[in-house]
């Protein structure tokens, strides 16, 4: 790891000023960034630790939306009675990330800012039509996830919270890589009622995406059979030593079918 200057700001404004330095990086749980720094994939001049900003962690709901602070740990989301009640699928998803030690440190904000193509949270954020709040304003999810490890965040922009829309029913199914626990394919299905169904796919492509053909079929009839016959094209999907694009395409349909089954339970 290369040397850097460490900062632990006590206010969001102070954090934003430090993060505006050209080679600065924000630090949340460090579960992705510290590893990247050890490998010198990231060598920031300044590390701005958000760990002291207690206002960035927390969970609240108004019945229509569920808002989770950026610094809320995966373990806290997985265990939260409020999340389990409002969006049980989201608590389940958080409990499936990595292992329990990683979940004790890793955060929602860090996960979606990182936008790893195989990360779990982006699928929930996209399917649950979330609003991403930052120190500079808000982003709609439709324009937030831009590509491989790329988001709409400006340099130094700090995610403060994510506001999820509460669906009538939802489920997340992931086919995980047994070694890393990241998703080879993960599908989040959310039914908001009135023919509004959203299906988000992670792990399969370079960036999380919506599967609109499945959304239409499920809007007509929310049933596993509606998606079971949909053949997903492997074009543009990831091929690596873990799975070919054809296999991933097949898994999208299988995971979507299982997610609909789970949502109906």
């Amino acid at each position: 790891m290369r040397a850097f200057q460490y900062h632990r700001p006590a206010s969001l404004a102070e954090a934003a000023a430090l993060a505006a330095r050209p080679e600065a990086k924000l630090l949340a749980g460090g579960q992705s960034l510290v590893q990247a720094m050890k490998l010198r994939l990231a060598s920031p001049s300044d590390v701005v630790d958000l760990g002291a900003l207690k206002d960035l962690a927390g969970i609240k709901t108004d019945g229509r939306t569920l808002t989770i602070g950026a610094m809320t740990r995966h373990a806290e989301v997985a265990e939260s009675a409020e999340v389990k009640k409002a969006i049980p699928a989201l608590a389940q998803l958080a409990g499936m990330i990595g292992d329990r030690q990683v979940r004790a440190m890793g955060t929602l904000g860090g996960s979606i800012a990182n936008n790893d193509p195989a990360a779990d949270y982006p699928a929930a954020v996209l399917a649950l039509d979330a609003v991403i709040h930052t120190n500079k304003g808000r982003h709609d999810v439709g324009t937030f996830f831009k590509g491989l490890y790329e988001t709409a965040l400006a340099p130094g922009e700090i995610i403060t919270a994510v506001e999820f829309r509460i669906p009538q029913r939802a489920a997340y199914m992931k086919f995980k890589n047994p070694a890393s626990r990241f998703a080879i394919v993960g599908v989040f299905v959310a039914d908001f009622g009135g023919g509004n169904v959203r299906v988000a796919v992670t792990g399969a492509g370079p960036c999380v995406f919506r599967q609109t053909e499945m959304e239409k079929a499920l809007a007509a009839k929310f049933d596993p059979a509606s998606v079971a016959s949909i053949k997903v094209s492997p074009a543009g999907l990831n091929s690596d030593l873990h799975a070919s694009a054809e296999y991933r395409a097949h898994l999208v349909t299988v995971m979507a079918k299982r997610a609909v089954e789970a949502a109906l339970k």
Partner: protein
Amino acid sequence: MAVRVSMKVNGKAVSGEMEERTLLVTFIREHLRLTGTHVGCDTAQCGACTVIMNGRAVKSCSILAMQAEGADITTIEGVAAPDGTLHPMQAAFKEHHGLQCGFCTPGMVMNAIDFARRNPNPTEQEIREALEGNLCRCTGYHNIVKSIAAGARAMAAAK
């Protein structure tokens, strides 16, 4: 540049000067000389470096020491009673042959203690899931799972 970090480790206030890029595990092993916390992979995979920080098991190879400023840390050296009586989880690992070479054991025990505090009566499946972040190259896990089941029962009984 050198910075100062202060935290509580095994009940004692400690502090030290170190480079900002120092990992928590390096601080524990090389500054505090508590070498029971091991480094197996250094890439967040194996869990040998697991310590309990503010009541949760974490991988100390994946945390900067500065992130632990003001934290309350327990390492494997801090779990036995002052007279040397093993912690119930340690005793269970000994009783059920939950170790062979012992390299992974400190991390296994620290993760298991945090897990059993939250889940006093776990099923075998829950124990296996809780071990996703801990690798053992010797035992094949069966006796580790048995040890944790027994250790969790003993911890619950000792309450």
